């Protein structure tokens, strides 16, 4: 890659002369000096700015998904029977499993941050990889569900012709509306997971190069915030799509 195109992924300011990287526990990388970008006065300011920046970004994500949740709430209120019936057509076992998988990935992510904070490089890499495994599992199960919906003719706009008779109060357009929300909200969520996997990949690569230490682990923590947020979106998607369909 030509030098002029190589934009550094992480701040590559001057390593702090009095790098305290060497003072923490075994297993830490030897050359994990702090890197402070030129616009910051010190490492603290950089860490705080990075964390606040990620939180502000998560605010935008809350509003982004929030628009969909608002639309969903309104249509659910207007077409309750159709939304309940649609919900019953989703596979609750797969949904519950996926929820557990994602919660597990949040645990491993939190443990990855913990490893970074305590300077344990190998554990950090292991937990990052585990998080990715769980994330990929989630996506795999989701893909499996999507394929099943396709087979059952339940994909709006592309292949929507449910074979079973609709219960009373359920019209075809309203049912299609439910599945619009199902696909769009879970697809948007899935897209965020894929981006998250990309971020994790970068973190694994950088961790293996010894970029992080107990004094410099902000990117891990900040990426963790993003990952937990994606988990939280699912924590709401799961009941709203799978659980409140009158399965009794």
């Amino acid at each position, binding site marked *: 890659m030509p030098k*002029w*195109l190589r*934009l550094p992924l992480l701040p590559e300011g001057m390593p702090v002369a009095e790098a305290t990287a060497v003072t923490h526990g075994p297993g830490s990388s030897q050359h994990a000096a702090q890197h402070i*970008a*030129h*616009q*910051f*006065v010190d490492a603290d*300011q950089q860490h*705080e*700015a990075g964390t*606040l*920046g990620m939180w*502000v*970004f998560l*605010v*935008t*994500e809350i*509003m*982004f*998904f*929030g*628009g*969909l949740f*608002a*639309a969903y709430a*309104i*249509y659910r209120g*207007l*077409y309750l029977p159709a939304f309940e019936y649609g919900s019953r057509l989703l596979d609750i076992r797969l949904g519950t499993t996926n929820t557990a998988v994602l919660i597990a990935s949040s645990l491993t992510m939190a443990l990855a941050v913990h490893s970074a904070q305590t300077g344990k490089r190998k554990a950090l890499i292991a937990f990052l990889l585990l998080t990715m495994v769980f994330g990929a599992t989630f996506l795999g199960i989701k893909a499996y569900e999507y394929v099943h919906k396709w087979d059952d003719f339940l994909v*709006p*706009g*592309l292949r929507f012709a449910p074979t079973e008779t609709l219960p009373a109060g359920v*019209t075809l*357009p*309203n049912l*299609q*509306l439910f599945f*619009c929300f199902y696909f*769009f909200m879970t697809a948007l969520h899935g897209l965020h997971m894929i981006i998250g996997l990309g971020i994790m990949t970068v973190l694994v690569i950088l961790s293996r190069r010894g970029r992080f230490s107990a004094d410099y682990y902000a990117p891990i923590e900040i990426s963790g915030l993003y990952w937990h947020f994606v988990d939280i979106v699912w924590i709401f998607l799961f009941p709203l799509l799978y659980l409140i369909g009158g399965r009794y």
Partner: protein
Amino acid sequence: MSTAVAEVPGARPVNYLNAKYGIRSWLLTTDHKRIALLYLVSITFMFFIGGAAATLMRMHLITPGGALVQPETYNKLFSIHGIVMVFFFMIPSIPAVLGNFLVPMMVGAKDLAFPRINLLSWYIYVVGALFTLYAILAGGVDTGWTFYTPYSSTYANSHVIAAALGVFISGFSSILTGLNFIVTIHKMRAPGLTWFRMPLFLWAIYATSIIMVLGTPVVAITIVLVALERLLHVGIFDPKLGGDPLLFQHLFWFYSHPAVYIMVLPGMGVVSELIACFSRKRIFGYSFVAFSSLAIAVISFLVWGHHMFVTGQSIYAGLIFSLLSFLVAIPSAIKVFNWTATLYKGSISYQAPMLYGLGFIGLFTMGGLTGLFLASLATDVHLNGTYFIVAHFHYIMVGGTVMAYMGGLHFWWPKITGRMYSDAWARFAALLIFVGFNLTFFPQFMLGYLGMPRRYATYPAEFQVLNVMSSAGASILGIGYLIPLVYFIYSMRYGPIAGPNPWRATGLEWQTPSPPPTENFEETPVVTEEAYAYAQMAPPAAVAGRNAGG
């Protein structure tokens, strides 16, 4: 405040403009000042595209039957004018140009918190603009900038998806810029720069950024839903398939009303700086003005239903929105009163930036007052969908924001370029713009009240006189906007060299050389004074005149 010593005697000192040469050093820059100039060029380009659409519209409207284009084309013209002007000129203008340039300097930092995200923000803007330009060249879009459904999602035959994607993408540019400003202002203020010592421009930018961050994502997702509905023919907003067109409007206006405050708040911030400097006085009621910016940001999110009074919205919701819309006028009024009080017994001079600042106060007040007619449900029923609305928002956006933007450009031009422009030409252009603007838009209040609908390619013959006046005004306005292009470009090469502080203004940005070095400050400044410490300033030295370069 020393300039960097040049290696070669007589050579220009190293500043952000000449620090590195070559197109790569501009396209891959992370220097906030260079990024501000990248934005300046792009939004000026988009301004003239939107202006071209407006020119064609006003020429077309000289005769009642429509002199120039087919009605379908007219629909595309007003849509393109709106989309380009709102999303690609007005929203980025002051934040992305003046904000990017000044925020780090005003807080005493070397750059924004996230310089590479800043550059990414510009690239995202450019990609969004390219999508929109493609939509225009491929045949245009005719839904209006408001993309109302189900026309946009189901029935329109124009390039809705391309235009919608352009808007969607540009939204992320806005979000990232706002995010950068919020973090910079919270975390990177110089020692001694407490919140209440900040220039009011920073308060305005901060409030604007809050709106950008909270509102833009909602319109982003809404536009994606429209595109999906268009692609998949599903019924999210189509009543025939169970959708609710009003839901689109709620989601759209939830952002787009605060968006108009994204457009006007930074202008108010600029005006505070101009009024203080050219009255040689601190802004009266500083904390009121600061808090009013935050109040506008918050209340702006509570009023969006006033765009929907005649759409079939619930009457009760309409009542609430109407009441809240009256409330939102209060903080704006507070600002106008405080600026006026600042002028009182000030030592006032009338250079071009001040002319624009004063113009803002008058025209924004008129625009704001006419907004009250629209906030009240009963009168809005008569005025909605007419030229009254068009005049109202142009008074605020053009008479307000564009004037403030021009004033800011004129005020900070010597800092940005190190050169002074011809103040005589600048004042002439300002007056031309003021006259042209009023001639264009005041008749439109009358047209609206008399019943001429907006977005119509033809009109009853009795409205022709006012329309001709409006079109005549538009031509004067257009010339007024072209003149600064000439003298600004001329000044970059031939203008007299401006010193660090030709206006003798307060503020950290004036403590650096003009143009500033890449890192802004040799050492981190320490702030010990309140903002606008004009009273404590020493009287001018014999040589430094008030009219630097007039």
